[in-house]
């Protein structure tokens, strides 16, 4: 059995290698083409010929015990900068422009770690709950799974996505790729806190991760009771190590850093910790030298993913504009699109489901007339808040602000169809 599986995998690999040069999958799959669009029209697999993969049986059942994407999609991978000073405290981005819908595949979910990815044996992992509680408790991972559970779809976004200074980036992933969205399964934090019984002075919960940074963030008790989750699964399977296996927090709509991974400890307190991560980092320095602290929410934001930076329109005519919108403060209520450099705006169609604190997919049918232009989207959430322009943000916050940049990102389309980031012009 094992042998036959191995054999067929080898066959499949040979078959794949025999095809020679492999072209980036995203470029081909996209209606908006990349430079690899010219498929050899003399291919024996095109009409009127019958393709070779219809003339022999394919790989048998069990060829892959855990499925992976087609080899032709090998270029759809995390976007990790090549020139980082170090890779232990670093981040890797989701290739947003290569994905569809609102759910990020687990293998492409963005990552941010502060001291690498710990290899945690779940049997030896514990969650301690102590401080201003009636009964300090210790839970195993199985204990947490015994609580009544729930599944919720929410986005997660790094607080600095991107900064306020040029260059912002060439692709949508370069710009806002520290953003992903998944269905999370876990337990309401409220139930776990109630299990220990909170004392009246309890106002904050300090969450700590079991990584080598022992990362700590303080969460207001109101959020713990509103919608915070202690999560064990992501998109139906157990969390990946990069996402906090075996337990993590999800605080819908709050900046990514607070959604503590590898969760090992909840310390109930009267005051926040003022930990390094919530004072020296993740505070917003204003032009006058003051700094905003405990700025938790990720505000309404959107970006067009197709067409977007690094892609090319190779022909005039129909081209659906599509992208994603999200808000930490609730549901997206409207997305406007301009195809004339911001002069006029029209409403895009929001695709169901439209969920609170989740990505919402928008679409707009469009015909490109072949002339240079700039396209951009702006999100409006259910609080009435309108996604601002970069200039509007910088006017208030200055360029050193760093975090919480939710600006509109304009894409320039040149006469030859090349798409680039107009903000970097």
């Amino acid at each position: 059995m094992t042998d036959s599986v191995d054999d067929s995998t080898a066959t499949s690999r040979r078959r794949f290698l025999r095809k020679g040069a492999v072209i980036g999958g995203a470029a081909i799959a996209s209606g908006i083409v990349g430079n690899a669009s010219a498929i050899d029209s003399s291919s024996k697999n095109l009409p009127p010929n019958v393709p070779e993969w219809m003339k022999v049986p394919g790989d048998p059942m069990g060829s892959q015990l855990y499925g992976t994407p087609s080899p032709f999609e090998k270029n759809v991978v995390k976007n990790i900068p090549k020139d980082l000073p170090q890779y232990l405290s670093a981040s890797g981005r989701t290739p947003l422009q290569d994905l569809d819908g609102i759910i990020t595949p687990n293998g492409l979910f963005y990552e941010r770690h502060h001291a690498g990815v710990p290899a945690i044996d779940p049997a030896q992992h514990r969650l301690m709950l102590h401080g201003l509680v009636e009964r300090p408790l210790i839970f195993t991972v199985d204990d947490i799974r015994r609580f009544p559970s729930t599944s919720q779809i929410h986005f997660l976004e790094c607080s600095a996505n991107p900064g306020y200074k040029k260059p912002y980036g060439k692709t949508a992933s370069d710009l806002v790729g520290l953003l992903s969205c998944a269905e999370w399964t876990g337990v309401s934090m409220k139930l776990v806190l109630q299990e220990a019984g909170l004392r009246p002075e309890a106002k904050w919960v300090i969450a700590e991760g079991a990584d080598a940074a022992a990362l700590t963030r303080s969460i207001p008790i109101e959020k713990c009771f509103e919608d915070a989750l202690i999560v064990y699964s992501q998109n139906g399977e157990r969390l990946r190590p990069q996402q906090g296996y075996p337990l993590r927090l999800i605080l819908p709509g709050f900046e990514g850093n607070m959604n503590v991974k590898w969760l090992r400890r909840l310390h109930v307190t009267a005051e926040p910790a003022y930990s390094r991560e919530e004072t020296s980092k993740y505070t917003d320095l204003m032009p006058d030298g003051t700094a905003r602290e405990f700025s938790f929410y990720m505000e309404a934001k959107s970006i067009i993913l197709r067409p977007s930076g690094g892609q090319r329109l190779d022909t005039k005519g129909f081209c659906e504009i599509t992208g994603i919108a999200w808000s930490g403060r609730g549901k997206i209520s409207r997305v406007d699109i301009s195809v004339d450099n911001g002069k006029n705006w029209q409403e895009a169609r929001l695709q169901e489901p439209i969920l609170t604190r989740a990505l919402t997919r928008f679409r707009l049918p469009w015909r490109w007339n072949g002339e240079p232009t700039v396209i951009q989207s702006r999100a409006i959430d259910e609080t009435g808040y309108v996604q601002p322009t970069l200039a509007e943000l910088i006017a208030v916050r200055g360029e050193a602000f760093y975090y919480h940049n939710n600006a509109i990102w304009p894409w320039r389309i040149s006469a030859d169809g090349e798409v680039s980031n107009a903000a970097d012009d």
Partner: protein
Amino acid sequence: MLRMTKAAAIALAFISLASAASAAQQGPYGIGRTATATEIAGWNIDIRPDGHGLPSGSGSVTHGREVFEQQCAACHGDKGQGGVGDRLVGGQGTLATSNPVKTVGSYWPYAPILFDYIRRAMPQNAPESLSNEDVYAVSAYILNLNGLLPADAVLDAKTMAAFKMPNRNMFIGDSRPDVKNPACESNC
């Protein structure tokens, strides 16, 4: 929907039962076990900004220089000027300029959090490996490099808790939404 309501009602009943008995030994679901004082003491390394939780022991600027050279300089630079790791020194007076430099000396609001962070996360290749004395000492040296402590100073729980960082009072609340896009629709 009906089932949900029923489940919620049962959960509520559980909770009110539990709170009725104020010294209940067990929570509404009876899940988890009691954490002992020893277990909590082993894991709780949180230090409050007022210094609560700082351990006994002390460390001098002089000893801190040795610790820094051995454990920190490779990433943070021999004088804390930064490298692979963050810049730790300087920047005072730059925060309100167009090129602010955020360091321990210019930006961090609380000295005890320096102890908390170094102990839990540094050095990056071996966190929680320094003795309390070493952590006090290297904290003292970093403050000294920033011109905030004299070269003959010694830090302990009391002096660290009492230490006032220069940027202490510059943190404010979150005033967002702070930007208003008028959402112009035509002929903008």
